[in-house]
């Protein structure tokens, strides 16, 4: 299945119901706090049809934080393998995207060194809003915006507005 076909299948089959399993591969604990806040009143992911589940068997999406510490690899693979397909992997935060720890004896440095990542969410930590956007992109309900942002500013602009 190509990524596009996968996304269409997921959007069709799962509609507005997505179950999320979280996985910590060695974070500093702050990404976890932002993820917990997704279920809090200010963000309430349930209104969007997203749910957390502690059981990998029920999960459709794996939300992964941390730089994939090598000692954790077995646990990470077991969690991923325990999820039935189709499944989506989302890498969360600068650690998971290679911005904090390098490829060295302790850490792989990125989640995609071990797991097949479908969506990457930058941030240190990504705020719950950024996470909601990322989850929406993962199920094809929200537009990916970063592709078209140049991250340049005219010399007299105070800031450019990200598409909102």
């Amino acid at each position, binding site marked *: 299945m190509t990524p596009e076909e996968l996304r269409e299948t997921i959007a069709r089959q799962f509609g507005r119901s997505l179950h999320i399993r979280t996985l910590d591969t060695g974070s500093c604990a702050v990404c976890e706090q932002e993820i917990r806040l997704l279920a809090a009143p200010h963000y309430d992911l349930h209104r969007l049809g997203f749910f957390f589940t502690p059981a990998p068997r029920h999960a459709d999406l794996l939300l992964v934080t941390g730089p994939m510490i090598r000692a954790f690899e077995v646990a990470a693979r077991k969690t991923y393998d325990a999820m039935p397909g189709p499944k989506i992997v989302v890498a969360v935060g600068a650690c998971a995207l290679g911005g904090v720890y390098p490829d060295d004896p302790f850490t792989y440095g990125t989640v995609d060194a071990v797991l097949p990542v479908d969506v990457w969410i*930058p941030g240190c930590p990504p705020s719950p809003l950024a996470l909601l956007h990322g989850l929406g992109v993962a199920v094809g309900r929200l537009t990916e915006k970063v592709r078209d942002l140049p991250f340049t500013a005219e010399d007299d602009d105070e800031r450019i507005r990200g598409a909102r």
Partner: protein
Amino acid sequence: MTLWFVRGLRRGVVTTRYPARPEESARFLPGPPAFRPGALTRETAGRLAGACPSGALRLAESEGQADGGALLFDVGRCTACGRCAAEAPQAVTSSGAFELAATSRSVLIKEIPLRGRNDDTGRTA
């Protein structure tokens, strides 16, 4: 327990309308920088790359030219720590972007053009 039910109702709704509506508090969130190409000499770009603790900034190989070329900015590695802005405030501002999710890793690597030798804007680095 009924008291908690009442308390909850009385507190009212604080839930954001995002993504249907913009979220006002988002403007206070830290985010990756945006760069001003007019102020990005090769020397400045080199200093920015040296200041970044995440390896998010890197000078691209220039094709034989002494000036011009690009600064490669890996948004995925950026932690919005602000060290690049502190190093060269005239060249760095805030992008204000927080919706950064990408479906391919390469989409997060941006080429920021450097100021060319013949680009005479009268600005100093």
